[in-house]
């Protein structure tokens, strides 16, 4: 008898409590996860979000910080490399050092592609450079070709003729740079941006991939960095 009463009481209690709890936790609108993405774009020459320039082995003391395009070119004695840096402090709200960066992509809009499939490497730069003064002769990684070695690259993709990943012009080309951005956000490393070069700079034939620069004043083609993180 006592056991029957106890079971009955349990049943009544459960029936009364479950709906109340379900109502209390607002099941229909529970937010389970939250992300934020900061998109920095070099939309104009006046943009402070991006510093971008290319250096030219053929004009080793020239600076291209104000040109509207940037070249990555392989050609013995005429190599060209891109330098680019984004000001992460312009993200609003600021990305906290404790944030977890789940993805970061460097996007450049390609306007001309090589007639052969080329591998384009991205390297994290470890020293300072300036958009209006960087040249082939004073670039952070020095003037030796194929330096730094590909093994030190952050990321790579292939651009040019088939079977490249990117075979057409007028589209964004992306490199995954999550680890670099995470190290900058956390403070483990200092943000000096990236250098992009052809994976093999020793070439008897000109292999040119050209990208839109912030100085093109075109938001549809702006260099951009897309950072997704958990706040």
């Amino acid at each position, binding site marked *: 008898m006592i056991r029957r009463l106890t079971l009955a009481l349990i049943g009544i209690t459960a029936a009364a409590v479950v709906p109340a709890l379900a109502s209390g936790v607002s099941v229909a609108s529970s937010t389970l996860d939250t*992300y934020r993405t900061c998109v920095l774009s070099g*939309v104009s020459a006046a943009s402070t979000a991006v510093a971008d320039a290319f250096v030219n082995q053929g004009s080793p003391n020239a600076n291209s910080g104000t040109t509207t395009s940037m070249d990555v070119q392989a050609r013995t004695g005429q190599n060209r490399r891109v330098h680019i840096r984004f000001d992460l402090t312009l993200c609003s709200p600021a990305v906290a050092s404790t944030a977890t960066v789940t993805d970061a992509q460097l996007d450049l809009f390609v306007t001309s592609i090589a007639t052969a499939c080329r591998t384009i490497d991205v390297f994290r730069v470890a020293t300072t450079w300036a958009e209006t003064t960087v040249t082939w002769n004073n670039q952070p990684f020095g003037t030796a070709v194929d330096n730094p070695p590909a093994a030190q690259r952050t990321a790579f993709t292939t651009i040019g003729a088939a079977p490249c990943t990117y075979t057409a012009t007028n589209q964004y080309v992306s490199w995954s740079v999550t680890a670099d951005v995470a190290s900058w956000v956390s403070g483990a490393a200092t943000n000096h941006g990236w250098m992009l070069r052809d994976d093999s700079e020793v070439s008897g034939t000109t292999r040119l991939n050209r990208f839109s620069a912030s100085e093109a004043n075109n*938001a549809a083609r702006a260099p951009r960095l897309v950072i997704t993180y958990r706040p």
Partner: protein
Amino acid sequence: MTAALASPALAATLGSTSRSLGAGAAAVTRCDSDGLATRPNLSGTTVVSVTVSGIASECEDLIVRATVTGGTSSSGSTVIPSGGGTLTVTLAAAVGVVESMRIDLTVSK
């Protein structure tokens, strides 16, 4: 005793994405442990949609809502398909691209 009776029933109802119970706690079990990637999709100089990728299969049937803030602000939402993967959230209105933009993304029931 009451909580002990109620929790299993409620957990069964909510599945793996349930909130924890007790003393107003708001602890949440995420459906995706390794995180998502988000990309803005342009039409000319405006953002018209957002691509979300890397969604775990455990997130299926949940709702993704994206709010893009740039020259203006606009939102959109969609249900995560079976198996997770990649989806596109179309914004209610196009948002002009500016130097620094923000995308707020939530995954909810």
